[in-house]
């Protein structure tokens, strides 16, 4: 099956810093989503981005489908950004395959 790898697995940053999270996938995909799982376990949709670049406030994402990777950028980090960031890809059928996540901790 398709492999989804995220890096780094853990990231600890000072408030105000910028970060880049990476998602590599092993095959062509129909869909790619980035999620933020907050410390209460809620999964929040960040981006639906099978290709191209999107921005939403301090967050932006870029997917280069031909090279099978996506990047999530977080600028001017806040403590509320803490949590686990998941990349998930849709390959062929409807089965969304999740990466193992990047755990982000923002220190005040």
């Amino acid at each position, binding site marked *: 099956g398709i492999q989804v790898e995220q890096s780094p697995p853990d990231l600890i940053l000072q408030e105000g810093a910028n970060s880049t999270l990476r998602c590599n996938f092993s095959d062509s995909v129909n869909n790619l989503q980035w999620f933020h799982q907050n410390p209460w376990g*809620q999964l929040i949709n960040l981006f639906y981005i099978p290709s191209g670049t999107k921005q939403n406030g301090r967050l932006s994402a870029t997917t280069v489908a031909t090279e099978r990777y996506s990047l999530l950028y977080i600028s001017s980090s806040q403590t509320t950004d803490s949590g686990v960031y998941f990349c998930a890809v849709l390959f062929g*059928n409807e089965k969304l*395959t*999740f*990466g193992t996540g990047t755990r982000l901790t923002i220190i005040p």
Partner: protein
Amino acid sequence: GAGVSQSPSNKVTEKGKDVELRCDPISGHTALYWYRQRLGQGLEFLIYFQGNSAPDKSGLPSDRFSAERTGESVSTLTIQRTQQEDSAVYLCASTTGHGQPQHFGDGTRLSIL
């Protein structure tokens, strides 16, 4: 409500009991998905519904797990004769159709004693 609703939010039960978890998708969403998330891990796909049919049940871990959906709305995930390894958060998502963004509920945290 506007989002995916799951109930109960928490369930604690004894090993060997049956449990039923409920998911109300976003109104008008035809596709519905169940996932399991063990502590500290990513999400595992369990089953997917398109309308009332389940074209992909490949993620169900054993025959103790079953799911149904009626009226292209509510879905229930049933776990029979629960085991301790069933302890996890069970998440439901819905979407308007193939390839569209999936929207998740807050999950049911299941603890088997």
